[in-house]
C-alpha cells in the first residue's frame, strides 16, 4: 500500500530544511526521517517550530532551503494531495455545517467510498453528535470533527498537529489505539504534542526546541542514551547538553 522504495522505508526525509517566517528563522537546517508504518511523535514546547515543520511536510509552507521528500515526491506535489492528510491545531471545519455535512463534503472531494463518513464518525466517537452544527460543539469535539476529516479515504501519511489536546483520557487512549491500528495497516502518522507523557505512546520521537531537532530516536533509545526514566527528564538533559554546546560556539 505504501510506496516508499524511493526513500528506503522512510515516509518523510528532510535534509537541512530551513524556514523563515516574518523575518525570523523558525527552522534551522533541520534533518530528520519519519519511518513508514510508524507512529512518530513530534514533541517540544509551544512555539518551538512543530507546526511550521508539519506545514512544511504537508507542503503549505514556503521553505527557504534544504530538501523535503514526502512519500517519494517533493513535499507539496500535486500527487500527494490525496495521499497525505493534515489536521491543523485549530479545527479547520465549517462551524455552520453539521458534523455529517462537513465530512460528506471532504469525502466527496477525496472520492472516498460510501460509508466512509459513518466509519470516521465512529472512529472519533461522535455518533451521538453527528447531526449537530459543528459550531455548537465543545472545543474538543470540534477538534475531533477536524480529525475525522483527516481519516477519510486512505491517506498513506497522516500529519496531526496536537490532535489530542483537551480530550477526555478515555478518548485519548482510544485515539492513540486507533493511530497504532492505522500504523499496523501500513500508514505513517506524524503526531505533534507539547505533552511529554504522550511520547511513550510513539514508536519514534523527534524532540524539538527553538527550531532545532534535539533528538531523533525511539523512546527507549532516548532514555537509555540520556540515562533518564522519562521523556521530560530526557528532554531537559538534551537541552542542557545542547546549551553547553551552543554556549561554547558563542564564546568561540
Amino acid at each position: 500500500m505504501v510506496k516508499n522504495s524511493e526513500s528506503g522505508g522512510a515516509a518523510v526525509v528532510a535534509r537541512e530544511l530551513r524556514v523563515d517566517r516574518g523575518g525570523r528563522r523558525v527552522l534551522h537546517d533541520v534533518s530528520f526521517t519519519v519511518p513508514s508504518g510508524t507512529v512518530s511523535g513530534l514533541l517540544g514546547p509551544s512555539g518551538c517550530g512543530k507546526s511550521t515543520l508539519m506545514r512544511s511536510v504537508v507542503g503549505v509552507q514556503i521553505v527557504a532551503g534544504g530538501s523535503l521528500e514526502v512519500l517519494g515526491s517533493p513535499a507539496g506535489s500535486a500527487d500527494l494531495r490525496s495521499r497525505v492528510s493534515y489536521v491543523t491545531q485549530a479545527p479547520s471545519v465549517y462551524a455552520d455545517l453539521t458534523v455529517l455535512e462537513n465530512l460528506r463534503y471532504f469525502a466527496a472531494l477525496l472520492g472516498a467510498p460510501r460509508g466512509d463518513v459513518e466509519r470516521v464518525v465512529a472512529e472519533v466517537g461522535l455518533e451521538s453528535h453527528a447531526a449537530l452544527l459543528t459550531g455548537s460543539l465543545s472545543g474538543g469535539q470540534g477538534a475531533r470533527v477536524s480529525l475525522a476529516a483527516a481519516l477519510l479515504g486512505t491517506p498513506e501519511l497522516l500529519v496531526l498537529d496536537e490532535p489530542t489536546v483537551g480530550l477526555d483520557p478515555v478518548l485519548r487512549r482510544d485515539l492513540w489505539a486507533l493511530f497504532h491500528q492505522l500504523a499496523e495497516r501500513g500508514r505513517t502518522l506524524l503526531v505533534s504534542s507539547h505533552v511529554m507523557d504522550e511520547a511513550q505512546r510513539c514508536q519514534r520521537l523527534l524532540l524539538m526546541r527553538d527550531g532545532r531537532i534535539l533528538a531523533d530516536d525511539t523512546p527507549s533509545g532516548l532514555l537509555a542514551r540520556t540515562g533518564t526514566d522519562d521523556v521530560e527528564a530526557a528532554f531537559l538533559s538534551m537541552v542542557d547538553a545542547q546549551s553547553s554546546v551552543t554556549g561554547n560556539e558563542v564564546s568561540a
Partner: protein
Amino acid sequence: MSPRATLATTRRVLGQLRHDPRTIALLLVVPCVLISLLAWVYDGTPVFDRIGAPLLGVFPFVVMFLVTSVATLRERTSGTLERLLTMPIAKLDFLLGYALAFGILAVLQAALASSLSLFVLGLDVAGPAWLLVLVALLDALLGMALGLLVSAFAATEFQAVQFLPAIVLPQFLLCGLLVPRDDLPGFLHGISSVLPLSYAVDAMSTVTSSSTVGAGVVGDLVVVAGCIVLALTLGAATLRRRTP
C-alpha cells in the same frame, strides 16, 4: 478540474446558507422592499421607469459583493481554505463552486425582484423579462468575482465590509444612474468607462428602452463577462497553496 469537486462545493455553500435562513431572507426580501420603496417615492413621475431596471442589476451586484467577500475571508481565516488547498480540489473548482451556489441565489433574487417590479409595481420595460434576469445574474457574478478578489486584501471582516463603500460606491456614483454618463465631465466619463458596473447599467438601460436584443446590449454584456473572468482569474491567483 472536476465537476464532482465543483458540485460538492456548491452543495456545501448552499448547505451553509440553509443553516442561515435569516441571510437567505435578507438576500431575497431586501431588494424587493427597496424596489417597492423606490416605486413609491417616485410615484407619478417617469423616474421609476428610467432607473428601476438598472437598480434591479445594482442590487445583486452589491449584495453578492458583500456576501462573497465575507464568506471567502471566513474561509481564509478559519483555516478551511488551507485545508482545501492540501486536498485534491482545483482552485477553479473552488471558485466555480461558489459562483454556482451564489449564481442560483442571484437568479432567485433577480426573478423575485423583477417579477414584483413588472407585475405589481408596473415597471415599464420594452425588452424581454428574461433579459432583465440574465443581466442581473451577470451583475451578481461580477459582484461575486470582485468580492472574492478584495477578500484577499482584507485581514479582518471589518476591513472586508469597508471595501463595499471603497469599491462599490464610486462605481455607483459614476455608472450613469445619478447623472447620465454622457453628461459627466470628460475626466469622470473616462473613469466611468473603465468601471464594469457602468456597462451593467448601460445594458439594463437599453433593455428598458429597446424591445430588441441589439448589438449594444450584447457588447455591454461581453464587457461585463470579461470583467468577471478577469476578476476571477486575479482572485484565483490570490489563493495560494503555499504561504509564508
